[in-house]
């Protein structure tokens, strides 16, 4: 990672400033300023992390993990064998088929919101939308419990963002940092100031903040100052987001697609210690031409997904990184008269891999035609509770919105223990 000159200057100045302040009896949390470069290396390898692969619009279970060959609901594609004996998946996923030993597939999702806005909210937060409450997305919760104060990179990053409640009532500290579908940084995240000017301006600002902090001890001001430092440190790590060089090497592993590039970006961020990265792929809402759409969307997605898991595994990161694959809804068993499948939440599929979960597991079952769950239904609450448990976060952890206690997985959710290691 490169480190611009002005940064060295200002770090020395800050070091001086910190010592003086400490001598004056007031200790600010400057520790993080000294380790910009060291951060990546010092990331605790055992720290749990999570990547969410988000299939926006609602990927079809019939064209991925829950084939119904020979049934009227079965569709056009054929099943293929996998490296998990006795388990088949759709022929569109040959690479995932060879990684089934890493996956837990849940074939018995039964959720409560059947439209897109409701489903996107539900499967990002675990909760249905409610008037007057902004629920936090899963990324914000994970940022809060697995994120590190003083890290150079934001703790909640989205690439091609879906879902719009962000940090919700957890507050701006946990807002997502959202990259464009092409991986561009959000507006205002890049300083165009001459580094020398930025550096002297920063020193003047530090002086002003020191003066205020001498007589004002309220923790709000401290948080304000730390957030400013975080915004500044972000300038040092822009190189992490520049993936062209590495992409040339990894293009084949991830597959030459936009989604593949996003997944490589996610791996780089996870490797730097970012605890949560969401990667979006869109256009699954196949009310017409379901099979055409899935033939176009699934192969590059599954290539990238398999490549991501391989890459994580080779770097020793898969066992610490939970990879979640889901959309907001499933699709109807019936194929409509436009060769489409509509929205369906009575029985659909999701998948997990990596940290905390078993590999080579197919949990739950749908009935003969995929119309209903045959056994072991998993609600959205159960699914979120399982994810949090796998990451070592107690699913009953409560936050407050006003006086109302709101656990991170809804009351009454059950962890699916059978899929956890």
């Amino acid at each position: 990672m490169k480190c611009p000159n002005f940064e060295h200057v200002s770090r020395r100045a800050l070091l001086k400033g910190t010592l003086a302040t400490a001598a004056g009896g007031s200790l600010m949390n400057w520790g993080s300023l000294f380790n910009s470069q060291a951060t990546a290396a010092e990331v605790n390898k055992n720290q749990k992390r999570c990547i969410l692969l988000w299939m926006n619009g609602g990927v079809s279970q019939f064209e991925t993990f829950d084939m119904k060959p020979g049934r009227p609901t079965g569709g056009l594609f054929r099943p293929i064998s996998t490296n998990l004996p006795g388990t088949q998946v759709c022929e569109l996923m040959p690479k995932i088929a060879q990684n089934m030993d890493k996956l837990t597939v849940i074939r018995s999702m039964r959720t409560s919101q059947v439209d897109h806005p409701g489903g996107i909210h539900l499967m990002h937060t675990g909760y249905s939308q409610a008037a007057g409450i902004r629920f936090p997305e899963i990324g914000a919760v994970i940022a809060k419990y697995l994120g590190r104060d003083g890290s150079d990179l934001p703790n909640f990053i989205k690439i091609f963002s879906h879902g719009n409640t962000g940090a919700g009532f957890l507050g701006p500290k946990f807002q997502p940092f959202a990259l464009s579908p092409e991986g561009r940084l959000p507006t205002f995240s890049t300083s165009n100031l001459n580094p020398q000017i930025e550096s002297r301006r920063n020193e003047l600002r530090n002086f002003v903040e020191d003066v205020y902090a001498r007589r004002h001890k309220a923790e709000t001001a401290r948080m304000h100052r730390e957030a400013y430092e975080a915004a500044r440190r972000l300038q040092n790590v822009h190189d992490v987001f520049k993936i062209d060089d590495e992409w040339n090497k990894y293009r084949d592993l991830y597959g030459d697609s936009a989604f593949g590039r996003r997944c490589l970006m996610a791996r780089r961020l996870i490797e730097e210690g970012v605890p949560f990265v969401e990667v979006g792929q869109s256009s699954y809402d196949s009310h017409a031409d379901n099979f055409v759409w899935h033939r176009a969307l699934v192969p590059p997605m599954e290539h990238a997904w398999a490549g991501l898991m391989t890459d994580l595994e080779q770097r020793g990161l898969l066992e610490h990184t939970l990879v979640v694959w889901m959309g907001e809804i499933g699709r109807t068993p019936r194929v409509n008269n436009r060769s489409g499948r509509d929205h369906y939440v009575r029985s659909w599929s999701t998948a997990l891999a990596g940290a905390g979960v078993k590999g080579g597991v197919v949990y739950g079952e749908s009935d003969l035609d995929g119309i209903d769950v045959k056994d072991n239904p998993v609600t959205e609450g159960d699914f979120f509770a399982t994810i949090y448990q796998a990451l070592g976060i107690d699913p009953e952890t409560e936050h407050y919105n006003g006086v109302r206690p709101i656990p991170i997985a809804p009351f009454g959710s059950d962890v699916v223990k059978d899929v956890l290691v």
Partner: protein
Amino acid sequence: MRGEDSAHYLEDSCGTPAMIRSLSFSLSTVLIFFVVACAAARGDDQLRNTIDSRVEAVWKAKKIAPAESSTDAEFLRRVYLDLLGTIPTFDEAVAFLDDKAVDKRSKLIDRLLDDPRFAGHQSEVWDQVLFGRNPPGYGTDKREGFQTWLRKQFSDNTPYDQWVKAILMAEGNTVDDGAPMFFVQYRNQPEDATEAVTQKFLGVQLQCARCHDHPFEPWTQLDFYGTAAFFARLQVVDAGKKNNLTMYAIGEKNLGDVLFTGPVTEQEVGKKGEPVKPKFLHGDALVEPELPKDFEEPRNFPNGMMPPKPKFSRKDQLASWITKADNPYFARAVANRVWAQFMGRGIVHPVDNMSESNEPSHPELLDELASAMVAHKFDLKWYIRELVNSRVYQLSGSGSVIEPMPALFDQARTRPLTAEELLDSWNVATGYEAMQQAAKAEPSTDRYAPLGSGYLMRFFGTPNNGVGDFQGGLHEHLYMNNGGIARLLGSGKGGLYDRLLNSESAWEERVDRLYLSILTRRPTDEERKRFVAYFTAEKDPRSRIGEAIWVLMTCSEFRFNH
């Protein structure tokens, strides 16, 4: 909501004893009301003195040394922000700081209370109480009609009980009259309306009782649905268009009930509930006239016209009951809420959870505030005048307290400026409007010019978490650090930058102007020296002046009201 937490469920915490408690509670309120009313009639005591002696008594009892009195500069900035929602101009600051009169603080308060910006700011504060940043309901984000109406209530100083009653009666339409917009948020959701009305106007939390009897408060599901029954017949009607805006009206039908099906956990698919009759909270059932046996009415009100009034309005009955002077919750709730607006936190905190398990920090004082509110006929301007004239309000914000909202009010609170306050204060600090006028620019009709509501709301709209604590966010700094506020930093004539650059004065004086313009105070010697050195470090000060303005605009001292 799905499911409930059985571990939190305490059996039978409601019932008869609570009813008796509540009765005695309202009797004592009425008694105090008479005592205070008599005192007020004699004019022998001011509420500000009651506030100070009650709060001081607790400091004494707990051996707490409060912060010293605020400096004039501290007070000036605080009271401008709290009353007008903006900082004073350079000229206003100098005039106040150099004024030698001993009663200059109370005179300033009187002047600000009569400033038109007072109504503008207070109505924005209440608009947020009533709607929040992301109001539910289609069309509620465009509510100029409501906002104009509410501003008028504050500029006329309409008594609080009267304008709340108007909101609850919801007469007319949302474009011409404004007030009906409140209920547009809760279209076909009588349960949501129940939660909102009881929280916002009565300061009580019924929402737990929506799905199960409240685990530790005397609220039962029948209290909840008894209140919801008042709203069950409301319909949001599209009454036509005007100026490209839909005129919504709140219609009320003659028929229709909420159905109660018991605790959520005992519900079954297809089980039909029992109709629940309207009942006042901890009070009597509503007595309703019978409708003729064969009475029928259409299912929906037709669009494009105002709905007719019902033969008997449940909504109006509730509006009268809520806003009655002897309602046991209403006056306490508003006294506590406005207290919190100025003092940082409620005497009962949070302000919308007045309940027996959440005790007030100063119980006698809260009784007295509520009674005085009634005695002064819900005159909010009078009440605010008393609050900001108190010693407690005028304490310093500096000191050793770490909590941003000290529970015993022994130091002034530190609260983040709202998006609107930041924008208006930045505009004042940089002389943005003066620059616009000097350039003869067309005045903007956009409330959020020149930064725009999109960015302002995204980066500053909700600075707190769900329980009201400030959460320092990365994004507001990215915005400020990387060019977001550049539009305010123009070099136009009459602006701060221009005045600093093209001045004949010594640099020391220019630094004074910089500090007074942005931080509403004169710099210390140390600060003056440091900034003079900054400006004179090279021959050309232009870039450095912009940098220094930016530094003071983005620092913690500016970000908070303290």
